């Protein structure tokens, strides 16, 4: 396996090659009007960070993402847990859950804006609608999958149902919950941005949309780059939290969706 510093070095080289290719082709192969260029984007980003005009947008998008993420996760985990332990209720609700989850969120976004206004609330709710289902399904599957034999072993040792819950069920579903959270975080950001695209007066999605409408590919790509950075940073934070929480698992099993290596 590749060593850490080497890995980071190669990643850096790959990024630089990509940027280099972009820089060189811009103006030579394609008109910068369409694709801008890394140097133009850099100058733009330097400007908006230096004069502080981007922080308001960034803050709003982060606010929508994380508020929606936490609310959605709490409900998703709570409902997933409750239904995982109530077979009959889960069977009754099953088609409804599937149907609601099947609705493309982009179709809901305009409705949420009609109902909750063009402010951050409508985006928060859109994010909740995405995160809820992802964490719900994962938690539910986790509760269903708890090994009955492990529970029996504790029962034979004299454990109460409450002790079985604390010592088996909860620890057993932690990997499922972290997977759910991990998968939903990028979707949460996407949902917030999509909401801002449709109607907003602030936020990174609004900024990108606004720049695009002015044919400023530099501004649009600058916004997209900031967004991409946010996703990468959040993912790294979640990965670290996960590998701490799941230190008891063999390495191969720790890898979940969204992790390539």
């Amino acid at each position, binding site marked *: 396996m590749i060593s850490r510093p080497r890995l980071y070095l190669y990643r850096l080289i790959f990024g630089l090659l990509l940027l280099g290719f972009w820089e060189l082709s811009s103006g030579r192969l394609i008109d910068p009007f369409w694709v801008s260029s890394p140097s133009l984007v850099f100058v733009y980003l330097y400007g908006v960070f230096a004069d502080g005009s981007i922080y308001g947008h960034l803050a709003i998008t982060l606010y929508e993402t994380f508020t929606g993420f936490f609310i959605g996760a709490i409900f998703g985990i709570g409902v997933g847990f409750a239904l995982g332990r109530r077979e009959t209720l889960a069977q009754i609700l099953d088609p409804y859950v599937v149907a609601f989850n099947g609705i493309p969120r982009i179709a809901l976004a305009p409705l949420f804006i009609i109902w909750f206004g063009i402010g951050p609330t409508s985006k928060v709710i859109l994010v909740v609608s995405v995160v809820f289902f992802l964490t719900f399904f994962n938690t539910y599957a986790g509760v269903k999958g708890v*090994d009955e*034999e*492990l529970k*029996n*072993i*504790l*029962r*034979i*040792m*004299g*454990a109460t149902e409450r*002790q079985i819950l604390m*010592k*088996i069920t909860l*620890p*057993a579903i*932690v990997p499922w919950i972290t997977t759910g959270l991990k998968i939903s975080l990028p979707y949460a950001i996407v949902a917030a941005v999509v909401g801002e695209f449709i109607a907003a007066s602030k936020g990174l999605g609004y900024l990108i949309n606004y720049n695009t409408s002015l044919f400023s590919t530099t501004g649009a790509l600058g916004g997209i780059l900031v967004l991409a950075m946010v996703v990468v940073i959040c993912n790294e934070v979640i990965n670290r939290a996960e590998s701490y929480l799941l*230190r*008891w*698992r*063999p390495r191969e099993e720790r890898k979940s969706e969204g992790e390539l290596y």
Partner: protein
Amino acid sequence: MALLSIENVRKEYQVRGKRVLALDSVDLTIAEGEFVSVVGPSGCGKSTLLNLIVGLMRSSMGRIVFRGAPIDGITTKIGYVTQKDNLLPWRTLIENVEIALEIRAIEKSVRRAQARDLIDQVGLSGFEDHYPHELSGGMRQRANIIRTLIYDPELILMDEPFGPLDAQTRIVLQDQLLKLWAASKKTIVFITHDLIEAITLADRVVLMSARPGRIKSIEQIAIPRPRDVFKIHEDAQFRSSYERLWQQLRPEVTLSESAKGELI
């Protein structure tokens, strides 16, 4: 008085509407402090028998009496060492070993000391803080056994605990098990499909027929203790018991079943 008596027990399973007879007319009495091995071809109902004794299932007919009272559900007086090691993967070795004491709300320093002592007895010192996936199969199975010993059940059931281990590890663990048993004087019902293992360990070997499982014969093993598990197969008594039991077991083990039994 008998510690455990199994009286005319029969167990049927319903599998997709069809009835499968797993155990039929099983009668067996086990005395306090005895080490009994149960041998039989794979699928003859050995695990079923243990599940009935421990109270996880109910028999279709007959009853099982423990210390004078019929078994009716789980009791902590009977411990169960399962075939799969079933350690909790999110707990370290020592946390797995002490869990039964934790359930009883025993103070941490006390239960740690007891767990350390047992871990030491089976040669696992130094691995206390390892997670199960960082231990070998033999180490996990030792942990599986001592986490049952730690809360001192009066009767311990063991379901092919050394089944998946290689021959050398098995012998070492058999030796350790006999020492633990000699020190604790528990009553043990030990299931295996290995005749040599059964004779090496037991006071009595119970031989079961192929499904539906019935008791085919019982052989008293009078080889004196302490036994040397590394040399016991040279013993004359061992050889004659082995011969007798094998004559009985052979017709029960069809070729395909023996192949399956060896692989699992």
